[in-house]
């Protein structure tokens, strides 16, 4: 996969993540741990979205826009639903970050690897079990 394709895929993932964490924030009780974790993650994914857009523009590519809306696989009503959604967001982003690691070199690759580690530990914080190869499509 080319660098631009990997960046576009990651950007599309960030758009979905920002939307998803908006849903998480909308569900959560404002003082709960779900709200705190959710807000922190929302901001992280916003920053990554902005960085990816800027990089794509520097490469002369038009960044993919956000979809008007994203289909949720199941209703998100309770904190438990929100945690499950958040796990899914991080696990899907991890796959995109792993692809970005393969497509980049040097400091950019180090950054993508850092994002992968961050997604793996965030997924854990949302209640997922640890896995052997986060983002590499196993288990």
């Amino acid at each position: 996969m080319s660098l631009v394709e990997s960046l576009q895929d990651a950007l599309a993932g960030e758009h979905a993540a920002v939307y998803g964490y908006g849903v998480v924030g909308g569900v959560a009780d404002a003082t709960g741990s779900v709200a705190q974790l959710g807000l922190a993650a929302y901001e992280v994914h916003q920053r990554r979205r902005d960085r990816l857009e800027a990089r794509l523009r520097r490469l002369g590519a038009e960044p993919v826009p956000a979809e008007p809306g994203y289909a949720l696989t199941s209703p998100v009503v309770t904190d438990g639903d929100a945690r499950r959604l958040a796990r899914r967001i991080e696990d899907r982003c991890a796959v995109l970050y792993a692809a970005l690691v393969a497509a980049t070199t040097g400091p950019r690759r180090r950054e993508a690897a850092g994002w992968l580690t961050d997604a793996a530990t965030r997924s854990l914080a949302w209640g997922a079990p640890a896995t052997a190869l986060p983002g590499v499509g196993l288990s």
Partner: protein
Amino acid sequence: MLALAGVAAAAAGLPGCAASSRPGAAAGSDDTDDTLLARAAAQSAGELLAVYRATARRHPDLRPLLRPLAEHHAEHLAVLAPDGPPPLPRGTRVPRGRTSALAALRRRERAAARSRQAAVVDASSGDLARVLAAVVACQAQHLVLLDGQLR
């Protein structure tokens, strides 16, 4: 698992595997370097596996925590050295105290993760870098879980 086993090794051009599929890659120093990186990562996974197993033997109450983590290192080993793991170290010393044993595990895991982090950037093959980055991410999860027990 099977789909992935050998990806890192193939990317690194290890003996017994398909040659590197990188476009235009000639068998040269890049492949050699990647072979060394994959071998070092396999060695490290084998050492960690041995330490986790020894710690679980010495501290049975830690087994539920340590078993799945040891299993992850075994998976890393299978991906990084599909033709057979390097010999596992024997006679690993494990501190008698539970907290000291966990702290020793944590130190080793952290040191290994740092070495792999450097290898991610050094790897010529993107596929190898991806696998190594996943190993680092897994180890970061382990550190969180070990920290949870040490708190």
